[in-house]
């Protein structure tokens, strides 16, 4: 972490960049916040540890419009999102200095809460280097958890340890994948329609329409979202039953289909713990099956599958009824 701070300070001092986007220490050991750093003293609060899960690439949409260059700390998976933003001309690459930061999986405090860990005073073992267990010092005594068990779901299907775009890389990364990316999707596909419907209904009935999933999504970069259009009466902030949430979530996922890099931010930020990535991943899986493997953000020149076609594409009627035969 110190190396990263020193380098950022250096970049600002020598005028390469005017500001840096990174994470600021939180008031709890697990809640750092994305922040801008400009002056040397700002870096006193700079932090980069296991809880710095936020994908900072979306902040570059605004930051790249500012006067002067901005340095941004991107984890390997975040660089896919950044590439995708370049593809869509939403960020100015010229105005960005990308520091690829090392990552050995990011952590989810909810996982600890699920284990009954509360009253946290301090947390050890979440530094960016090292590979020991995580130790919680709490009011109710000391608790331990394996780093792996505390990881965000998305890190179990890690896209790999390589940054796909960067100006320089600081720190080591680890491929933390230990599960198949489409495992959950396949599991749902194998259910009966009734089970599937019941599953999504119970998950989506929790939705409070806070729009966090949309606002955090690096692919959701429309200047005006269709769901913010006051002239459209489905711009609903809440609904009588769960259908509209279904519509919101299907459309949200559809609008980013072919552009979603599967960064998992939507599921990370959902206050109700809805596995929103299941929608996005279903689209990704279908796109892979129907139109050939495609990873958004891997290549900033690649044509997105939904803005492309071939003459002998699959007919919609053949897209369904493949699972439960």
């Amino acid at each position, binding site marked *: 972490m110190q190396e990263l701070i020193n380098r950022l300070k250096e970049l600002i001092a020598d005028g390469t960049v005017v500001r840096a986007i990174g994470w600021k220490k939180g008031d709890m050991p697990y809640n750092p916040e994305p922040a801008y750093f400009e002056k040397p003293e700002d870096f006193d609060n700079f932090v980069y540890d296991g809880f710095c899960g936020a994908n900072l690439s979306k902040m570059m949409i605004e930051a790249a419009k500012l006067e002067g260059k901005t340095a941004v700390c991107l984890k390997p998976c975040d660089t896919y999102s950044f590439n995708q933003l370049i593809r869509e001309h939403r960020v100015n690459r010229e105005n960005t200095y990308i520091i690829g930061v090392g990552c050995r999986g990011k952590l989810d405090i909810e996982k600890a809460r699920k284990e009954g860990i509360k*009253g*946290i*005073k301090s947390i050890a073992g979440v530094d960016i280097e090292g590979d020991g267990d995580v130790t919680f010092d709490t*009011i*109710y005594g000391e608790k331990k958890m394996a780093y792996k068990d505390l990881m965000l779901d998305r890190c179990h299907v890690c896209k790999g340890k390589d940054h796909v775009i960067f100006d320089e890389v600081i720190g080591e990364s680890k491929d933390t994948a230990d599960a198949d990316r489409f495992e959950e999707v396949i599991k749902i596909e194998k259910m009966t329609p009734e089970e599937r419907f019941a599953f999504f209904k119970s998950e989506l009935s*929790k939705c*409070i329409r806070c729009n966090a999933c949309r606002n955090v999504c690096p692919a959701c970069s429309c200047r005006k979202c269709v769901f913010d259009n006051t002239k459209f009466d489905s711009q609903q902030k*809440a609904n009588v039953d769960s259908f509209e949430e279904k519509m919101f979530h299907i459309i949200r996922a559809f609008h980013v289909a072919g552009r979603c890099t599967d960064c998992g931010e939507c599921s990370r930020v959902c206050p109700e713990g809805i596995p929103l990535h299941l929608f996005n991943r279903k689209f990704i899986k279908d796109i892979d099956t129907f139109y050939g493997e495609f990873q958004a953000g891997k290549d900033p020149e690649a044509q997105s599958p939904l803005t492309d076609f071939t003459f002998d594409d699959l007919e919609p009627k053949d897209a369904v009824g493949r699972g439960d035969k």
Partner: protein
Amino acid sequence: MYSIAKENLNSLYAAIAGSYDLFMPIKTAGQTNYGFWKEGAEGDIDTLKTIRSGKDAFFPQVEQLYTVNREIVPADVAAGDDAEKAADTPVRTKLKVTPGKLVDQDFVIFGMRACDVRAIEVMDNVFLTDPVDSYYKSRREHGIVVALACHEPEESCFCTVFGVDPADPSKAKADVATWMIDGKLYWKALTEKGEALTAKVADLFEQEDADAKVEEEKSYIEGIAKQLPNAELSLEGWGAGKTDEKFKSEVWDKVYKGCLGCGTCTFVCPTCQCYDIKDYTTKDGIQRYRCWDSCMYSDFTLMAGGQNRQTQLQRFRQRFMHKLVYYPTNNDGMFMCVGCGRCVEKCPQSLNIVKVIKAFAENK
């Protein structure tokens, strides 16, 4: 004092649900939220904080206000309709307004924590002041609040800062106070409404002299509450009449930057009460409903000719100024925050009211 063993709680829920609608923390799809208990539901009073607060009981996320039925009738020139215009547009719209139904049955809110009970007082100051909101009022009149002491407060809690006592729900404006001690729920009715509820389920309870036990539990909780990291948070500089000095502060510019403009904080907050009124057109009438709204949304103050809070900084400032300055100014210094800590846990970017208060203390 009455008591009931924890393993018998389901029969207590069933007994209450036999006479009332029972609104309580229920676990669905891995998360605990308030909901109506029915046979088979998994009541969960161990989870300290439901994700959504208990405000749904009195101020639900969606509420039907009234239905308007439209009838298209031919223009009636004889009844004073302008003949020339009638030829132009031959039909007229007639409307019929049917107000939504008010709650008229008693219902029980079970397992509310002291902070959420205080939040009801905060909302009362909004909805029960002139002009009274009758939808809210009917719910308040019929709701019986059973409060539950917080056995193990968490690090995100800072209710003591606002004078809420997590150890003693009988200090809050609840109808029944309860404590969960060593696998037993202790029950103390506080008001007439609470007595009436107790009478209906009394045969499930044992009579027990447990005052000493409860006192012991209270001092245990108080001991924990003192150790919480935000227990000493200072509200100095906030409150009634501080509009000018806080509004103009440059600290806002430092604290808002990460804000996504989502509505998580407002929707999980037990005191946020801003709402929107919207129409939904169906085959049988236009339903006008109100739903929660968030001051963080870009369309919150949007008008045909622009708006008054155009930047996220302004919207962010509005939320915290409302909670810590504007509301106290209008309500004898009472803060519009109860320290439940839900925003501390749920903000996607880890921004929250505690960080704001601390940032102002540091940048004096």
